[in-house]
């Protein structure tokens, strides 16, 4: 009985969340976002209840779920890896390479330890630790704790600056408009 009630509550909660997210997030992106025409399944892949058993891998065990974006590239989180899977220079414009990867290959280090990249090429290194105190000590450009931008595990990831759903309405899917360098000044003090 209790299980049934819990199941019903879960179903209501799930449907509510789904409804809310559909309300909050455009299902198909508007023109000018760079993601126009793409639907949810371009990035969000469903967990299918069924599959098919491989003819050459017989067995009776349950078919496995393959994990998504489960691999190591520097200190990128799975969200950044998802972005990279399309932003490769062919399917979608590449993030600045190889500077990004040189930085992200310095595993566990911050920008202040690695040193600033020579050429930012209009983009910011990803996977680096946001370490305001250390940055201030070594006289790197001052950082202040950013509450407006998300920092997964204390690191700059793609979602730190970009809202992939484009709900903010800012240019280039930014989380904060960068007019008058507003986004840069969220973290960097002059």
């Amino acid at each position: 009985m209790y299980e049934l009630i819990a199941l019903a509550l879960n179903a209501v909660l799930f449907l509510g969340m789904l409804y809310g997210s559909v309300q909050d997030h455009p299902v198909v992106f508007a023109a000018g976002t760079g993601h126009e025409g793409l639907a949810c399944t371009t990035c969000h892949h469903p967990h299918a209840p069924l599959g098919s058993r491989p003819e050459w891998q017989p067995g009776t065990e349950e078919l496995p779920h393959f994990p998504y974006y489960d691999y190591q590239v520097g200190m990128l989180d799975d969200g950044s890896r998802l972005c990279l899977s399309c932003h490769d220079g062919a399917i979608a414009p590449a993030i600045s390479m190889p500077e990004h990867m040189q930085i992200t290959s310095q595993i566990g280090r911050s920008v202040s330890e690695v040193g600033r990249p020579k050429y930012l090429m209009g983009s910011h290194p990803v996977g680096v630790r946001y370490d305001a105190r250390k940055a201030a000590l070594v006289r790197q450009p001052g950082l202040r704790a950013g509450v407006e931008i998300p920092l997964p595990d204390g690191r700059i990831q793609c979602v730190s600056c970009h809202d992939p759903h484009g709900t903010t309405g800012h240019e280039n899917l930014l989380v904060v408009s960068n007019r008058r360098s507003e986004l840069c000044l969220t973290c960097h003090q002059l």
Partner: protein
Amino acid sequence: MPVRTRRIAVPRAVRWGTFASMIGACAACAALVGCRAAAVRPEGGVASTQAAAVAPVFYPGPPARAHIVAIGPLTGHALAAKPPGKLRRAVTGETTGPALVSELLRPLSLTVRAGQILVVDVGRNAIVQIDPGTGEIRSVALKGMGEFFRPVAIATDGQGDLYVADAQAGRVIAVGSGNTVLRTYRLGDSAPFAPIDLAVSAERLYVVNRAGRRVEIFERDSGRYVGPFANSGPGRSAFPVGVALDGEGNVYVVDMAASRVRVYDPGGVLLRQIGAPGDRPGLLAQPRSVAVGPDGITYVSDAATQIVQMFRPPASLLMYFGGTGGTIGSMTMPAKVITDRTLLQTFASRLPAGFVPQYMIFVANQFGPGRIGVYAFGQVPPAGEEPTAP
């Protein structure tokens, strides 16, 4: 009280003498032990050809009979070659080499021509040629190409000509022997054209046009634009990202938005579909590339799940390989997958004893320790049966 330090004066002649003797010692040592440090810089990202043999990985694992064996990432070493100087660039028009290529950064596409594996590396913005026999790696200089050449995909035809797609400039170039540009394929000025994958038949060049979200057809030898391929009706692909051909001329199109591979006849009639959205065997999450083996088996790489799945006609799942896990068969955001028979003999000595290979499979991984995965398709004979030559 400050500590006083006194700089010891060393005569200039002694300083130069020390430097010269160090150089001399290095040269003598190199002559003795055969060190080529001065001539060849050891390659970094792709393992050396002299690397210790790694145990191959079989797919599927026991107790099932293996059909795929992974023999490790493609190996090689970079040749030391000076990048072209200003004068040479002015005369030959070279822009991309033959500079030292020490490491593949982000390979997206690859093909095989005349025993050489050619890789498009978008991280280095270069076409890299790897000789699997000798292990030599060098970048390919295309004569007459401008500074803004941005290759993203590569294919070859039966005559050995190369076809290279430049998504940024909106063109595909055909490259003949001597790396000279034979012709250029473009759409009209007004039509958006961002080629990201290619397949070549005897008469046609199929090009995935990201900007138009469709596949375009060109006449291969004249360069004339024929029109879009299978661009209407319920079988239309919404967001094609990959294309391949089978032995009968059927066209396989990867539709990333629909998580499916669609198979058309040469006339554009939909024959069948492979896969559906999902994260279990037989389903596709972010299909990226398709290849068809000489036996008709379809290989589909998936950038989300890090696997390549194998289907037999019409759409039955045979098996899958790759995955994460850090073995030599693992994949890291696989992009292009190709099959090839011409390099079977080259890799034969590296295949495990008892495995009867039929053709090779190469996978371009965008990241990870082994950028180009090398696999062989074949089988292990049942116990008691002697292996036969391919």
